[in-house]
Structures are given as C-alpha cells and as structure tokens.
C-alpha cells in the first residue's frame, strides 16, 4: 500500500511516520529540503523536494501508483487544489485534505472532498472540556 503525504511539517511528518509504522510505503513531499529532518534519521520512505501544485513532483513521488494521498501543507487553498488534483486527475479515492478553516472544510466536504479540520476538532474538544469541568455553584451565582 502506497501513500503520499504532501506537506511535511509538524502534521505531515507525523502522519508519514505513523503510516509507515502501520505498514504503508510512504513518500513525503515538501518545498523545503530541511523538512526531511522531521522524519527522523531512520526514515526509510521516499522524500521529494518540490511543490504539491507541480504535477511532475507528484508523479516523481509516485502518485500514479498511490493508494492514498494526505494533503497537509500550511496553505488551506493549496491543500484544496492539490487534493482535487489527486482525486480528480489521478483518480485517488482515498484523498484526505487538511483545511484549517472550518467553513471551507465544510463546504468542500459537501463538494465530495474528504476534509479534516483540526480547528473544528479543537473547538469541539475545548468546549467539551469546559462543559465537563465541575464548577462550584457559589461561583456560578456570583458571576
């Protein structure tokens, strides 16, 4: 099983390592050569320096044989476009796209893109965490 991770920052590199551990053959793509360091010294997967918008870079990373693509660069709109290129041009059904903006994440989900919004998750988790706090009744009354 081959996966491509576009954007090898904090999130992308961690996903790449996690998938490798789970038995995937992973190639990461990042504009910045130094991002390779995030994958650790023992990185056995592939790494391509380049921009995810560049189809030649995607091909070099092996997108034509890929079973899954994770798009997690630091630009929401770049992710939206690269995700659609992977899905529509290269026909990769399992394309997962990180979109920080919850509104765009929701909209593109309705357009058929598998989107993940860490911001929505944070909002959910933070509100739940507060709701689960035990607040003394006196303080509630005082405020």
């Amino acid at each position, binding site marked *: 099983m081959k996966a491509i991770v576009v954007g090898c920052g904090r999130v992308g590199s961690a996903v790449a390592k996690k998938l490798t551990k789970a038995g995937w053959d992973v190639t990461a793509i990042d504009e910045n050569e130094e991002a390779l360091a995030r994958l650790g010294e023992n990185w056995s997967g592939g790494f391509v320096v380049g921009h995810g918008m560049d*189809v030649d870079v995607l091909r070099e990373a092996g997108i034509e044989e890929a079973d899954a693509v994770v798009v997690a660069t630091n*630009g929401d*709109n770049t992710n*939206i*476009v690269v995700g*659609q290129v992977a899905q529509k041009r290269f026909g990769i059904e399992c394309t997962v796209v990180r979109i920080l903006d919850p*509104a*765009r994440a929701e909209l593109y989900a309705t*357009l058929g893109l598998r989107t993940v919004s860490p911001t929505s998750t944070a909002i959910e988790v933070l509100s739940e965490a507060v709701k689960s706090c035990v607040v003394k009744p006196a303080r509630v009354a005082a405020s």
Partner: protein
Amino acid sequence: MFILIAGGGKVGSNLARTLRRMNHEVTIIEQRGVRVTQLEEEFEHAAIVGDATEIFVLERAGVARPPDLVVAVTGDDEDNMVICQMARERFGVEKVIARVNDPRNQPHFDLLGVSPTVSATQTIMALIEHEVPEHELIHLLELRKENLEIVEVQIDKDSPSAGKRVSGLKLPVGSRLISVMRGGHAEIPDAETQLEVGDQVLAILEPGKEDELRRVLLKK
C-alpha cells in the same frame, strides 16, 4: 451589473476603476493593509478588507446576492481557483473570470472547471509565437470550453503534405483543415483540395494533437 473583484493589486484596482466609470456596481476585496488604505481612499465603502477565500469575507462583500460576475485576480493561483469555485458552487454565481499567474497551473484551473481564465504570460507567448516564424505552428484561438483550438501552418517545400490531396493526408483523429489561403484567397478545403507550397492552412483540433498534426503537415 454588480461585479465582485477579489484582489486589489494593479489588475484589480484598474478593473474596478474602469468598471465604475462604466457605471457598474463594483466591490473590491483586498487583504494587504497598505494597499487597502489606498483602495479605501478611492473606492470608499466599496473596498472590503480581508482574505477573499474566507466565506464570511465574501459574504460581507455581497457574494450572496449574488454578483453577476466574480473576478479573481489575486497574485495567488490557488486563491483564485478557490474563490471562483466557492462563488459558483456555494453562492450560485454564474460567471467567473480568473487570473492565472503561473501558466503551469492552467491545467488545474481547467480541472476545477474555473473558466474563462486570463494569463498575461500566455497571451504574450501567443503574440510572440505569431511574430516569430520559427514557431511553425501558430496558435490563433483557444476555445477552452469546447476543448478545441485553431492553429495556422504554412506549407513549405520540405513539407510532406505539399502536393498531396487532403484525402491522402493521415490527419490525426480530432483534427480538421478549415481553410487554405493561397495567393490572397481563402478557400474551404474538401477531400480533393491539393495542398501546395506557400499555402497558409488553418486547422481546428483538440489540444494535444499539435505534434501529430505537425508531423503530417510539416514534419521536422
């Protein structure tokens, strides 16, 4: 018309000014602070501050009315694609025009159905190709929606097609000769038309068939 312009750089602000002079209603969105101050001076409330790829910014600019036309002319291709896609898919805007900054991104615009597009580089290249005779296959017109283009070639003495009838040419599937200009007269060729040295031939074809067509008509 109500026209929404995303991107208040040179292109966006000049468009806004021109359209206002033609009495169109224009709203222009710009993100960069310095630029916004200038735009506000000129366009007042019609200048909106913010990231035009944020849905609430688009809404503040009136995208939900919806505009008759959305023009995305920021310096970022991904932004232009997303703005047009959202305007169409989410807000039912019928007409969009997008600027292509890097011509290598053109296929992405096409893939996402963002059309028509305008690329300064592409336009200038087409003019150069028209001027420079070395480029033996001249692009005259691109019908992007129809996925067709019209090109012009000149038959010279080394061309394998010189002296042949159209019916004897192995023209690529998805291409057709539409006119032959000889001695100042254009004629619509049929199967019996014989090509001669010096003929200027117009052909219509699907993009990507240029090389095949070049081989049949010109070789080299």
